[in-house]
């Protein structure tokens, strides 16, 4: 079983890169890979536990109907999928990035670390992909 490391930088909601990134993580699990993620800069907010959906008067939908995507739910779903398939899924947020953005409450299972963890992950993996921001 192989292990792949990903580093990502974008926050939720600002860029299509975020969607492609999560699709890659899902594809990695589909290919039976263990996954390690280092969330840097804006990506530290992807796992923020206090993300909330909302209704949308322009769409004419209430909060439940709108069913707004939240990246914290995607992370939780990936963790569940990994567990169901006996795969590892590790997520660490850059701690300084968390602090300056005030997103200290992450969903369970997401850790706090530093770039040294990115290097440690990469050295413990078969390959790595870094997705920078623009």
């Amino acid at each position, binding site marked *: 079983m192989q292990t792949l490391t990903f580093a990502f*930088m974008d926050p939720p909601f600002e860029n299509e890169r975020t969607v492609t990134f999560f699709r890659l993580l899902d594809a990695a699990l589909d290919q039976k890979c263990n996954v390690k993620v280092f969330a840097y800069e804006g990506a530290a907010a992807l796992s923020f536990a206090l993300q909330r959906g909302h209704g949308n008067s322009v769409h004419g939908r209430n909060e439940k109907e709108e069913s707004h995507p939240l990246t914290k739910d995607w992370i939780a779903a990936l963790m569940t999928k990994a567990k169901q398939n006996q795969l590892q899924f590790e997520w660490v947020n850059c701690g300084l990035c968390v602090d300056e953005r005030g997103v200290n409450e992450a969903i369970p299972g997401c850790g706090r670390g530093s*770039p040294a963890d*990115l290097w440690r992950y990469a050295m413990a993996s078969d390959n790595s992909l*870094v997705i*920078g921001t623009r």
Partner: protein
Amino acid sequence: MKLLQVVEQAFRTLVEEQDDTILWLSQSIQKAGAEMKILLSGNCAYYAILKRRQPALKIAGWSQEQPSDIRQDLDRLQASGVGVYVTRSDLADRGLIGLPLHPGVRIISQLEVAELYEEADMVWQW
């Protein structure tokens, strides 16, 4: 494992983060044992010719105390054995050919860029 760090998003974080966050991360992982080279790509070619510490930002009475200093970042990286490169074409496109380069930064050709990509075990393009 040889790493090539390609840094391209120039000036994006220099004010708010008081450094270039990829040069900062590079210093961090270098201390963790990474063997790397750095390619200052695209607009980051400007980092190779900066002569001063960044000016301090002032907003409504708030004044920055610790503006970034790219020259120090490049010095620290090079002192740790990290090679720093910039391409002739990126300098030329931006009218920077002939300006004094930060000590130790090497100008390379596009063919030499391809060599850097080939010889690295990992290419992290930020």
